[in-house]
């Protein structure tokens, strides 16, 4: 009897599935990122397919994006939905993207509501919107365990010094020097005082530092400084702060604090050294040291890195944390080859719904997360374990396929829960490791971000999302300027102290003329944003 029931319901399901199948729409998606093939069936994928009747076919990126986009444009074979990172505007110029204004107005109430505040940001010169930014839309405040960047210091150093509060570059290096003098070796290997990353495009980890020492968050190669009531684009590569910074590094290099090899090692070697636990300090954006930090958290928790807000002078006001921002120059568009643009926009509208976002980010209530008596979401240790397994999240749960390149929500919802689970405020501290908690307790904070000041809202933020017109004089200038930085910075740091002034003068002489065109472009962009956003 029971068996028959099961058989019947199975048949019913198949029949239902069959009818549903007949109505399935397919859209091809190119997300500009190398996602592996869709496993065929995933937890969120099946729900999305059942609710929308849409099946996505992903075209992964293998090889480089330039080539792929170049071929796409040359051949005119566009997928239905397309994200081309920094080539997005190129697709628009090539006439590959449909204007979305009317589609959103008529068929996408959720998108309309959510982008309402950013509409002018997305509008192109011709008055149309062609793409939806793929980054999460800032929606209330943002929190995280680690700030986006900082001067990182080995936990050992802080612990031994009795958890000091330090503010300036001099204090930071003093701490490192003192520790190094006492502990010339760690685990039998020579202690490395300070490392700075200088591998190819990643070398901004060294050259962007002056702006942060001046208290700014990551703006890019220039900083807009408020003068009167206008943000004036200002260069910092030749500023007194930059000079002081390189002089300090030079000093430390000659004292043996800065690693001898720091300018010739590549990223892999950098991560290796950081993971060895014998590096005392490094500056970077957090994501660049995360691989090492993960390793240390697991296997060497006493040597984890703690981010500190360091400035050049105690009078400088530190505002290094990122302001939540929308990246307006790239996003997801619907191509002219899409046969059903209405269906496509409806699908995107469905994806941005709060319920869908909750499903994608938190999962199913009672299965992937729980709700406590205050209505706050949390995960049990078993649930957490699942979401910590990247393989599971990707191939069983299926999040990246519907999340990574699609418009998504971030920030607080109406119930006080974060859409992005890792930023759920009351969990940041409780889900930290013991080693992390020890540091947080010592400084009386609930996250490492709290060691930093709250960011100040700036309408245009950040400068670096203004893109240079491809191949323009300003663009060529930018490449040449980076060449000059590549050539001079190692010399500035590694020369003998009496050579420093001479090299600095040559450096300033060579780099100054390579900023003019860029600053014009950025200034125009900032002015435009301040006026129109």
């Amino acid at each position: 009897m029971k068996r028959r029931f099961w058989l019947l319901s199975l048949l019913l399901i198949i029949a239902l599935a069959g009818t549903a199948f007949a109505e399935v729409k397919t859209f091809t998606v190119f997300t500009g990122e190398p996602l592996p093939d869709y496993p065929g069936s995933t937890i969120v994928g099946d729900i999305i397919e059942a609710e929308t009747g849409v099946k996505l076919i992903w075209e992964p990126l293998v090889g480089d994006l330039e080539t792929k986009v170049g071929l796409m444009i040359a051949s005119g074979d566009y997928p239905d939905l397309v994200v081309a990172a920094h080539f997005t505007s190129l697709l628009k110029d090539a006439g590959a993207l449909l204007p979305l204004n009317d589609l959103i107005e008529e068929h996408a109430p959720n998108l309309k509501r959510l982008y309402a505040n950013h509409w002018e940001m997305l509008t192109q010169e011709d008055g149309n919107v062609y793409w939806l930014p793929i980054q999460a839309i800032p929606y209330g405040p943002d929190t995280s365990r680690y700030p986006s960047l900082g001067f990182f210091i080995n936990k050992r150093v802080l612990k031994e010094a009795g958890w000091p509060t330090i503010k300036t570059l001099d204090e930071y290096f003093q701490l490192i020097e003192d520790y190094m003098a006492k502990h010339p070796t760690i685990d039998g290997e020579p202690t490395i005082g300070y490392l700075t990353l200088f591998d190819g495009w990643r070398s901004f980890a060294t050259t962007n530092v002056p702006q942060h020492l001046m208290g700014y968050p990551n703006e890019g190669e220039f900083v807009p400084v408020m003068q009167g009531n206008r943000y004036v684009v200002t260069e910092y590569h030749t500023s007194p702060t930059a000079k002081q910074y390189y002089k300090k590094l030079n000093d430390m290099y000659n004292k043996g604090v800065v690693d001898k090899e720091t300018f010739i090692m590549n990223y892999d070697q950098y991560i290796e050294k950081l993971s060895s636990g014998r590096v005392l300090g490094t500056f970077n954006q957090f994501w660049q040291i995360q691989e090492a930090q993960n390793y240390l958290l697991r296997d060497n928790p006493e040597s984890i890195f703690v981010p500190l807000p360091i400035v050049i002078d105690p009078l400088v006001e530190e505002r290094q944390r990122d302001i939540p921002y929308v990246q307006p120059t790239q996003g997801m568009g619907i191509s002219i080859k899409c046969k059903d643009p209405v269906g496509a926009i409806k699908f995107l509208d469905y994806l941005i719904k709060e319920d869908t976002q909750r499903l994608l980010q938190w999962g199913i209530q009672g299965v992937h997360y729980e709700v406590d008596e205050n209505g706050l979401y949390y995960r049990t240790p078993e649930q957490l374990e699942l979401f910590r397994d990247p393989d599971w999240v990707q191939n069983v749960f299926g999040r990246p396929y519907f999340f990574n390149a699609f418009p998504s929500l971030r920030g607080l919802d109406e119930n006080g829960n974060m859409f992005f689970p890792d930023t759920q405020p009351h969990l940041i501290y409780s889900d930290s490791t013991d080693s992390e908690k020890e540091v947080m307790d010592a400084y009386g904070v609930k996250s490492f971000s709290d060691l930093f000041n709250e960011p100040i809202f700036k309408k245009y933020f950040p400068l670096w999302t203004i893109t240079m017109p491809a191949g323009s004089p300003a663009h060529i200038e930018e490449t040449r300027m980076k060449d000059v930085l590549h050539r001079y910075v190692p010399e500035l740091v590694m020369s003998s102290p009496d050579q420093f002034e001479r090299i600095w003068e040559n450096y300033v002489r060579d780099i100054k003329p390579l900023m003019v065109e860029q600053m014009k472009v950025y200034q125009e962009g900032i002015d435009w944003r301040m006026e129109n956003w």
Partner: protein
Amino acid sequence: MNRIGRKTWEDRILDTIIYISLIFLVIVTLYPFLNTLAVSFNDAMDSSRGGIGLWPRKFTLYNYQTLLTRNQIYHAALVSTARTVLSTLLGTFCTAMAAYIISRREFVLRRFVSFVYVLTMYIDGGLVPTYFLMRSLGMTNSFWVYVIPGLVSAFNLIVIRTYIAGLSDSYVESARIDGAGEFTIFVKIILPLCKPVLATIALFIAVDNWNAWFDTFLYNSASAELSTLQYELMKVLQSANTMSGSLLQALSRAASGTTNTVTPRAIRATMTIIVSVPIIIVYPFLQRYFVHGLTLGGIKE
């Protein structure tokens, strides 16, 4: 061949130098491979600490599991094998034939044809024009794009031609006197004489085809059933970057000893092993043609 006589002092010194140099060479060339092998069997996160030598520090099969449990990997391996076998057979044969034709000293078009081929080594129209060509020939989303365009490569052609030129003309002459046609001469006389060089060229073509993924990317990325092994592996490698990127935040949440993760470094090492093992297995079969030493003793003037 017989060169074994009494050892002179010259022989002894020579042998010592040779053996010492070769053993040194073996050490420096074996190390990278063994190191890669060790990394491929080592826990990915642990490998990022560096310092892996010849033996894994934290043994795991997870890297292989990540690469080999993809949906399409076996089908892709099949496609790769098919294109490699077909390209090698057809490519070697066609190149040899073309080489024979232009090695004929009396042939009127000899210099012209050589010139046309040699030039192709140094000119390249670029990606987009080539793509348009393939598309207008109907070779996009087609298996044949793996075989047909690269059928005769100028480099291989010249190598074989040079080899044939080194052979004595008398075989061809006497065959012609016996009334053999061009094709018969080529198949019956030239091909068997060219075994060492053909084995070499076959190896070159096979390795190129086995390692190729860019043509899949350019022409066949829309047809899953034409995907190749290297292309599938490249996908995993590239996604390892994003995967470790997007999920790192989740990872740093708490230190977990059970967390499975792959890093680009671990994937690269594993890929290197997966891709080179078949070549290492097949190699000895080709090797006997050119390493046996002077095996061509059968040729008589």
